[in-house]
């Protein structure tokens, strides 16, 4: 894939006030159209890297560049590990939030909200409150909210970690469908080797203490992906490669 770089992280370091060094010497280029998974053990700085890209935190060292300009930086969607919906209001109003904050009136946003809800199959539940939905439906609502502004870059921080396997597989497929429909770039944090291989075209394997990328794995399988890919020899081989890389990253940690 020879696409233009969307975000470039140059020699990023991040330390916290308590002395913990979350990231050190992190170099990463995210290409337009990438589905990049950040794979690694807990506490290796994957989520921190995501927060730095989203400008929710500032790097202690290094710099982040947006070669396509400030506009790309403004068009970011974020999906957290839990659905992070406002429990006091309806699914409709939750999805409306980014537009409301941008000053768009509800009557003007109506069509776009329904379109986003249609995309994630939640149109029938627009009046429901988050507490009335299942875990998978909440996550769909959260994804619809992230998509409402048609982001160029979607950042996802272990979005399906708390879901059961069946819902997770279903949402994996839905996510690939949405990416194909909307053509956005996705950076996806996960602990799961299988999930990262199924979804991504690249996997960045992180090691911890301090957090850094120890290996970049290319998943050279075409999209769309489906059950056939999950059952293919290529998938098994990629899972083995990613698993070995992850094992290697964890053994680096043990040596410290």
């Amino acid at each position, binding site marked *: 894939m020879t696409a233009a770089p969307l975000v470039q992280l140059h020699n990023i370091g991040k330390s916290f006030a308590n002395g913990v060094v979350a990231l050190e010497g992190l170099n990463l280029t995210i290409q337009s159209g990438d589905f990049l998974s950040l794979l690694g053990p807990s506490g290796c700085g994957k989520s921190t890297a995501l927060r730095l890209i989203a400008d929710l935190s500032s790097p202690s060292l290094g710099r982040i560049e947006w070669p396509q300009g400030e506009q790309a930086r403004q068009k970011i969607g*974020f999906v957290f590990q839990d659905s992070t919906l*406002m429990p006091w209001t309806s699914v409709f109003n939750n999805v409306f*939030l980014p537009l409301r904050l941008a000053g768009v009136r509800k009557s003007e946003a109506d069509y776009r909200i329904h379109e986003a809800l249609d995309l994630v199959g939640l149109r029938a539940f627009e009046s429901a*409150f988050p507490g009335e939905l299942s875990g998978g439906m909440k996550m769909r609502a959260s994804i619809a909210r992230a998509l409402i502004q048609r982001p160029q870059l979607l950042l996802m921080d272990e979005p399906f970690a708390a879901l059961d396997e069946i819902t997770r597989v279903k949402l994996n497929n839905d996510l690939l469908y949405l990416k194909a429909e909307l053509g956005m770039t996705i950076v996806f944090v996960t602990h799961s080797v299988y999930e990262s291989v199924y979804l991504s075209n690249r996997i960045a394997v992180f090691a911890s203490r301090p957090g850094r990328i120890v290996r970049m794995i290319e998943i050279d399988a075409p999209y769309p992906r489906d059950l056939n890919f999950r059952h293919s020899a290529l998938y098994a081989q990629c899972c083995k490669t990613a698993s070995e890389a992850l094992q290697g990253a964890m053994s680096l940690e043990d040596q410290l």
Partner: protein
Amino acid sequence: MTGQSPPNSRRRLILIERLSENILPILVFIAALAIWEALVWVKAIPPYILPAPSRIATTLLADWETLSASLFVTLRITFAALFAAMIGGVGLAIIFTQWKWAERSFFPFAVILQVTPIVAIAPLLLVYLDSSLAVLTCAFLVAFFPILSNTALGLASADRHLVDLFQLYRASRWQELLWLRLPAALPYFLGGLRIGGGLALIGAIVAEIAAGSAGQGAGLAFRIVESGYRLNIPRMFAALFLISVTGIAIFLAFSFLSHLLLGRWHESAHKGER
């Protein structure tokens, strides 16, 4: 199993549980009144020592004109104080959350007012203020702190991921307050309001007693003091009964309000199976 009605024994159990939940407290209350009534009659206790519940009820009806006027005075003070505490508590909590220097500067004053007993402050206020304003101020002071501290806690307790989300979408400080922090603080505010409602009544009563002893006031507390001087003990009990009923009514009204506002989304308002 879904779609099947529970078996008879289970249904009976549910019925008994519901009956015991609602009827048992009423039965116990009625039994206590009956024992009280019987004790007074059997032991021939004079009404100026301990009036029977029936005597208190007849006094309540006979003196209704005087007592209801006093009840109205106490209620007016209680709700005026609670309203002021609500505006002041929520307003100050917003200021505290928006400007940390304001919290650091003024929160100690709020704590001092809270920890100093209102009985000790009331006579001092009666020196400086008009008696009705002094009573109102006392009731305000005791109701104010729980509303302030609860609301401030609620405003600071918004989900950190939602705070991140608002930051990501470049929400202004006021948008964050309006669409995130205020709704997130609602359960805390309502908790403070329930406590503050009861305390406003207590504050009003304490201040009325202090003002009454100075020869002013016509609230229920003043009626208690006045009845005590006249050894009209049944009227004392009748006034006390009205104060208790008022306190319970305030608590129930705010509980109902909480249920209305939070019932669909907050754990504290959920009842039954989920």
